[in-house]
């Protein structure tokens, strides 16, 4: 056991330090970064807390306040589960430290257990934003006693365990059976995506199952019963959180204690199965994970000639960026693939014609005024997709990691390198814009003028988002990481970029809709705003960006 704690301690220490060396000159930047993050998350947390308060009043009047906790716990469990899949796979299997750990006299369960603790710790950070305001607001409103807060702390610490264990089951099993043959990396990428698909699929099935078996009358019936009878329904999404909710709404009663203990026993049981499974299967999946395929055969004259084709330095650099992104599973999954697969989320909508039958009627004759409303809304949806997919640009510097020094000694100006990196992001995210416009054209049969205007705005949005992303990454590069996952997934720059981009987009869309502009005026206003933003950041990157790049050591 002590080895497990030692290992966990070392992992966590590495985890914290990987965010960058601390030196005096860096301190103001770190401070600015923290302030920005706080400024971005604080309103979210506060509004969540206030919202919970209002909701409490409404639900308390029908004696169903427990639904808030049920919904909150289920949501947290679901978020942890979905975001955890890739993190678990990467931390357990793709992290570089695996190679150093395997030769040490450690049990498989000790290694995988310590890695589990790291994931758990990371999920606590995610949990903070939702759980803290939820628990405090609910406790305040229900004037709860000390026991409620003690239970709250226990639930906060234990709630993510079961979802992560479920992620781990998926990961351990997938990796056990894909750790075969050559081309392991490719195989694993497919495995990871498959795991993500299963995870999301199960949740959707679960939800639609719950939905179908509840008639409207029954729902109303249950609501009217009061006494928190609805809790069981909401927690169906993640059934294990049911016990925790029941404990929290009855903290002063013996029943509450029983439920709390039940919740802990179930959690411990899951953890136990995890340890057993890890002990049995972890090494079978992880040994040989770093093997790369190799042929060791001479290239034919044609192959050789084809590879040594001359290109401009920019094109060559761009190709290098793409090759690395496409061949590294963490980058592929986080920066590339989403651009291609997000339309899949529209499939259920496509197969549900009822919802769109009415909508299509309105899109046949779109006048200038309607266009003035559709355009900003479409732009908003596009910006949401764009910023979710902006990882290629907002982690471009971080992805270089310890090898950033190579960028410094090659004879290519820093400005050119930064712009080429931004370009790689612009190209990838543009794919999303193209797909969006195609979907809009096919599904809604929008007029061609509107589609073209949408495409132009989309590209402007892509350019601005990519520039903002790379500018953030230049200022706060995350260079000290030991697995690629950390460069992209645990990189706050992506989050920061999303928050800034979302704020700007929301503001401009709000103004355009509020002013009730026509299609062309709306287009002009959005295009001008994003054109100016893009140009301003372009010039900033060209001048001070290159200087910042040169000072990164």
């Amino acid at each position, binding site marked *: 056991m002590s080895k497990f704690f030692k290992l966990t301690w070392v992992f966590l220490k590495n985890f914290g330090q990987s965010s960058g060396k601390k030196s005096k000159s860096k301190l103001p930047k770190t401070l600015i970064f923290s302030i920005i993050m706080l400024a971005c998350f604080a309103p979210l947390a506060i509004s969540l807390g206030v919202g919970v308060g209002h909701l409490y009043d409404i639900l308390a009047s029908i004696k169903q306040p427990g639904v808030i906790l049920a919904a909150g716990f289920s949501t947290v469990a679901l978020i942890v589960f979905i975001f955890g899949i890739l993190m678990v796979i990467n931390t357990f299997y793709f992290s570089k430290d695996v190679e150093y750990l395997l030769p040490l006299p450690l049990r498989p369960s000790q290694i995988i257990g310590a890695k589990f603790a790291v994931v758990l710790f990371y999920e606590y950070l995610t949990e903070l934003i939702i759980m803290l305001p939820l628990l405090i607001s609910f406790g305040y409103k229900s004037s709860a006693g000390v026991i409620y807060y003690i239970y709250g702390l226990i639930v906060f610490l234990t709630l993510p365990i079961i979802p992560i264990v479920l992620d781990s089951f998926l990961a351990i099993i997938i990796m056990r059976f894909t750790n075969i043959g050559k081309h392991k990396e490719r195989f694993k990428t497919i495995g990871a995506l498959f795991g993500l698909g299963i995870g999301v699929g199960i949740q959707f099935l679960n939800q639609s199952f719950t939905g179908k078996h509840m008639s409207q009358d029954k729902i109303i019936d249950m609501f009217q019963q009061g006494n928190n009878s609805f809790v069981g329904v909401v927690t169906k999404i993640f059934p294990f959180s049911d016990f925790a909710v029941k404990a929290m709404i009855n903290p002063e009663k013996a029943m509450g204690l029983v439920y709390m203990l039940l919740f802990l026993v179930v959690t411990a049981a899951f953890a136990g199965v995890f340890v057993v499974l890890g002990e049995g299967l972890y090494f079978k999946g992880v040994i040989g994970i770093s093997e790369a395929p190799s042929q060791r055969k001479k290239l034919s004259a044609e192959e050789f000639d084809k590879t040594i084709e001359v290109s401009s330095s920019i094109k060559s650099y761009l190709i290098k960026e793409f090759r690395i992104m496409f061949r590294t599973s963490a980058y592929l999954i986080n920066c590339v693939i989403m651009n291609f697969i997000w339309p899949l989320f529209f499939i259920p909508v496509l197969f549900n014609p009822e919802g769109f039958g009415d909508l299509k009627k309105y899109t046949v004759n779109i006048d200038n005024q309607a266009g003035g409303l559709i355009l900003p809304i479409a732009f908003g949806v596009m910006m949401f997709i764009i910023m979710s997919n902006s990882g290629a640009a907002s982690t471009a510097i971080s992805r270089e990691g310890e090898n950033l020094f190579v960028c*410094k000694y090659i004879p290519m100006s820093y400005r050119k390198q930064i712009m080429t990196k931004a370009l790689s992001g612009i190209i990838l995210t543009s794919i999303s814009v193209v797909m969006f416009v195609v979907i809009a054209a096919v599904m809604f049969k929008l007029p061609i003028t509107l589609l073209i205007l949408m495409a132009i705005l989309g590209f402007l949005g892509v350019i601005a988002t990519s520039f903002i992303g790379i500018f953030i990454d230049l200022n706060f590069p995350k260079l000290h990481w030991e697995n690629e996952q950390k460069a992209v997934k645990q990189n706050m720059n992506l989050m920061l970029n999303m928050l800034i981009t979302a704020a700007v987009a929301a503001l401009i869309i709000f103004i355009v809709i509020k002013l009730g502009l026509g299609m062309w005026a709306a287009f002009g206003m959005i295009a001008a705003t994003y054109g100016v933003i893009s140009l301003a950041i372009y010039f900033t990157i060209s001048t001070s960006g290159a200087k910042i790049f040169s000072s990164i*050591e």
Partner: protein
Amino acid sequence: MIELQNISKSYNGKNKAVDNLNLTIPEGQIFGFLGPNGAGKTTTIKMITGIINADEGDVKINGLSIKKDALRAKMQFGFVPDNPDMFLKLKGLEYLNFMADIYDVPKNVRKEKIQALADRFEMTNALGDQIQSYSHGMRQKIVLMGALVHDPAVWILDEPMTGLDPKSSFVLKEMMREHADNGKTVFFSTHVLEVAEKICDKVAIINKGNILFCGTLEEMRDHFKSNESLESMFLEMTENE
């Protein structure tokens, strides 16, 4: 030729890693850069190659300042870093071609150069594989080939022999000799004193950011008025500090 003019570098504003260093690495010679761990070798090399900025002073490579005329200065040299774990996801040939594009090497020249280097380092059969699948020594060789693909006048090599097998190490030493004999510059750092003793025309010894000695081995022996090995002279010099 490489000229280091009064360069200094400190970390955290106080610990001087390199202190007011002056050094001239002439053409036509193999120049060895020696020093114990943490002496400032890699920091100096990083300042020469533009990876980090010197706090004070300047470096000139074939007369071009790395600060004021960075791109042209960078075209002058080929650099082999001490850790060859880079571009692991690229195939060997893709990496070499990337470097050739960056250094504007014409197609027929790069073809000949790559084939010649691959032959010499016995890497022909590995060029189609990802660098990730290479052993440490092979990675060292591919990085070396990438540094030499544009036929630079100045070679800057940080611990180039580490991980090379005896044959490749021999080939590299041979190539260093040829390059210097053609009137070009070879500057390399090493821990291995035997290597330095055998192939260097000139050495500089650095410790705690200061140059303790710079000259030929004969001059060093004269300095110590003995016929000692480089090892004992080195130990004596760095321990007396």
